[in-house]
């Protein structure tokens, strides 16, 4: 964890800098709303695909969906 903290700090700093990069007007966002961009709602449920990986591998995270525990994840 000690070694990962500087990397995490850089990641957050990068995100903060990126916040000033885009200036996309509302009328320019039509393409971003296209279904092929797969923009997932932050309030949606975790997909079944995401759940499959979290129960078959020793890692988690990186998914935006809402989920919880189950016997399959022991």
């Amino acid at each position, binding site marked *: 964890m000690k070694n990962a903290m500087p990397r995490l700090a850089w990641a957050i700093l990068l995100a903060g800098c990126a916040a000033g990069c*885009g200036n996309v007007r509302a009328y320019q966002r039509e393409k971003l709303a296209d279904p092929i961009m797969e923009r997932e709602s932050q*309030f949606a449920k975790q997909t079944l695909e995401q759940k*499959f990986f979290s129960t078959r591998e020793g890692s988690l995270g990186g998914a935006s969906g809402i989920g919880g525990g189950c016997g399959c994840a022991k």
Partner: protein
Amino acid sequence: MSRLLRPVKYVLLPATLLFIVRAVFAGGDQMGFTTYYFSDSGENTVITTSFNLAKKFLQQTAFLLDIELDQVTVPPVTAVTGATRPQRKINEPFEKNRGQVILGVEQGLGQNTTVAANVYRSQEVDYTSTSVIGTLSQEMNDKNTTWTLRGQYNADLVGKLLPDGGLVNNRKKVYTGSLNISQLLSPTTVFDLGYDIVHLRGFLSDPYRQVRVTNDQGVYVVVDELHPSSRTRQAVSGKLSQMIPEIRASLIGSYRYYFDSWKVKSHTAEVKLNKYIVNDLIFGASYRYYTQSASYFTRDAYVGDQYLSGALRTADYKLKAFGSNNVGFSLEYLLRGLGKLDPDMEFLQNSSIECMYFRYFNDLEFSANILQASLKISI
């Protein structure tokens, strides 16, 4: 009911419910239905049916409901899978059902802020999970930047079915926090950055999984696995989504670095291409690569009397070092064309049907096929 009829039951019942709800709700609401079939190299199968509904009230309030039903079948001979079973079922097929419900309320606060509260409940014969989830989303910079903060508390009961049919429960608590930042970089590019932290305390083993130990006399003994009683897990992830208007396609690349207090570390990289074949038909192809290290208490063999008492030991393949690959294909048909044919069909404008297939395989000689079909309707 025979296995052939089970998918019919899991499709007809939710489909009927879907059409009833369609008749009741209207006006900017959304609902979806998904059915999922999984089978692996150990002949384990899972059939999942999921139904979800988002109903809007007033201007900025939405009610969310999600119901999921799983049926898991484990054959008599166990293999390298995530499916374990009670000892009394070791020599026969084991079937297990799970029900899951998520209820939620989402409230907009002004133009740029949204808060949500969800309750999650999962119930199966030997595992219960209950959690509360709070989410805060804030848009900034003329909606070019979105910050999302989430907190979650889980209280789980990890049960073990005894040979006499009794049930012994152990407690597990999980605390989760996550932060996601979404940034528009251009009219065709979006970057997402995420951080997740999960802290678990309590019973973190599988009560059915057993470890083979060679004692000091050289005799094999089988004992229950023993994991530490706490674990802190963290992940940092990034995703870049790029629209390519010239060929009506998108390219999405993502990477996740994971690490935890059990010394498991992993790298996950995924790339996906989505392409319009014709106006309303989207073809998707994806590839995912994964590699992880083992936990500090994973051993190829446990030798010594210390493993018969308090020394940590595991039979969980998810704590071994391994790599995996996942290849996926999907077809999504947008129903917006049908929605234009008749005013009564207008609800199909933001609706779609999708079929997906994934082939997963790792270097522990485990593989799986996953089929998924989804119907999404805006009403």
